[in-house]
């Protein structure tokens, strides 16, 4: 991995950690024993880190969700499952590299896995279109989910995309229809579905992979109808005010849990998933194990009914009072 600039709010912490490192080097060179002082400093650094990450603003979490070293879907697949075979293609037009999918083994049980795939470098990002799917991606996803239904195996989706790709060809080939069909297909799928929002969850492009029985979300992920930047640009014609928009949109896991949009929040390592891929993977594995056990027991028809009921009740409005009519 290439070196990445720390976030602005991490800078005091990074500086302190640098100082401690230097002090240690100096002591070792000078053969001095400052171990007690160093231990103290390290405790302080730990406290500082806890404080910093406990008080992140919604937009800081959005930036964490986009960290270039944050695990991607293929990373999670490697970390969470024991084996994986990737299947390609929409059987109509193209294989969309922005969405990966296939069959994986989860603790001995075959499951179908689908998710968007961001690249790690420029070349990969071009091949994967920065993880922004074309209609073919959604058609592949739906094809694999229907396959899962045929063979009665659960579906796990990972969600990390700012939206479906807004391109000429994507529109030509029916981006909107592909998303609608993916939502429809997932809604009535007669097998358990778990979605894990691992990073960005932007608009219909994200929802198209998120119509699940249990929706889980990493601590530093976001999920909304629009990205904070686009929201700011619409509200104030100034995408630089994204931080304000992020706060207005209530896109954080805490809010979404309260709203009943998601079912649980998966804690990340302190400082974000990118700091410890293995730990993040273990966390996700534990959550999937728990929720899969829960929904695997439910009969398929019942499962679909409950899934539909879950979404049926989302929305807030009131009857018009008589006086208003």
């Amino acid at each position, binding site marked *: 991995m290439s070196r990445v600039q720390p976030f602005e709010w991490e800078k005091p912490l990074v500086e302190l950690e640098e100082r401690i490192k230097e002090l240690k080097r100096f002591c070792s060179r000078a053969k001095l024993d400052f171990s007690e002082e160093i231990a103290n400093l390290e405790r302080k650094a730990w406290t500082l880190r806890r404080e910093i990450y406990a008080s992140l603003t919604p937009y800081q979490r959005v930036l964490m969700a986009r960290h270039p070293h944050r695990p991607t879907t293929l990373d999670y697949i490697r970390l969470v499952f024991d084996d994986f075979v990737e299947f390609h293609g929409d059987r109509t037009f193209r294989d969309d590299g922005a969405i990966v999918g296939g069959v994986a083994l989860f603790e001995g049980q075959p499951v179908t896995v689908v998710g968007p795939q961001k690249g790690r470098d420029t070349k990969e990002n071009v091949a994967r279109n920065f993880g922004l799917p074309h209609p073919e991606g959604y058609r592949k996803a739906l094809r694999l989910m229907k396959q899962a239904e045929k063979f009665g195996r659960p579906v796990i989706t990972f969600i990390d995309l700012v939206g479906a*790709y*807004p391109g000429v060809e994507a529109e030509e080939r029916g981006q909107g229809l592909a998303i609608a069909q993916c939502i429809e297909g997932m809604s009535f799928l007669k097998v358990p579905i778990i979605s894990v929002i691992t990073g960005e969850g932007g608009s*219909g492009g994200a929802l198209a992979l998120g119509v699940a029985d249990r929706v889980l979300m990493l601590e530093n992920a976001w999920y909304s109808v629009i990205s904070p930047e686009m929201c700011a640009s619409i509200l104030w014609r100034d995408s630089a005010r994204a931080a304000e928009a992020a706060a207005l949109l209530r896109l954080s896991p805490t809010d979404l849990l309260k709203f009943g*949009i998601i079912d649980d929040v998966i804690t990340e390592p302190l400082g974000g998933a990118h700091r410890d891929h293995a730990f993040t993977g273990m966390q996700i594995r534990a959550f999937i194990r728990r929720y899969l056990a829960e929904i695997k027991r439910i009969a398929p028809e019942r499962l679909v009914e409950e899934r539909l009921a879950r979404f049926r009740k989302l*929305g807030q409005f009131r009857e018009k009072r008589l006086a208003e009519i």
Partner: protein
Amino acid sequence: MMMNLEEAPEGLWTRCDGCAQMVFSKELEKTGFLCPTCGHHFRIGAFQRLAMLVDEGSFTPFPPLVAANPLDFPGYEQKIKQAQEQTGLDDAALVGKAAIQNTDCMLAIVDFSFMGGSMGSVVGEQLVRCFERATAERLPVVVVSGGGGGARMQEGVFSLMQMAKTVQAVGRHSRAGLLFVSILTHPTMGGVYASFAALGDIVLAEPGALIGFAGPRIVAETTREKLPEGFQTAEFALEHGLIDAIVPRPQLAQYVSRLLEWHR
């Protein structure tokens, strides 16, 4: 509440977006708001659409719902109130039971003039009720979409969830073997198109209507390409296999009634 044609172009003369000619507004009302020179379809409001599409006196609206402000989004209540006053609508969709040339159906009309026809909790809920009642009464559904950007930003993730909710109501109705005719008018984009509107058994569009997911401005900005001629028009959608037919406004009621009859 329902009788004023409040969407009529203001002023005596209106400029046509199709041919840039000035059109006498009174003239427009007679033609169903088609430009007499080029046939351009002017955008019309829900009540005007209703008057053109359904049998007179046949429409019974559903009980009205009003938007809440689930995110406490600043200024949202005022915006809603303003839109209500301007349009005479409770929210962006007019939903009820109607008859089109003597065939009963459930009908929903999305009105652009109410916050760009965006789909918040109220539009979502009303559409779901529309499909649910149609399923219960074994009736076809006709939806006239024309909902701009699609998402109601001020309701954030709740707006997003209406996509799933409406799609599921369409899915249940469809699985009951019932007909859904989706009519796309200018403009049907974003979350409205990418949910219920795209999923009609038969998808019709008015000539020249903008149809798509991402707006043309966003596509142009993202791709830094010149957009192809006629990009995202109804004609473009037809060529690309996304809709069944383009039906000019004057023929729409007759066309739809024939479909309803054949699917009785």
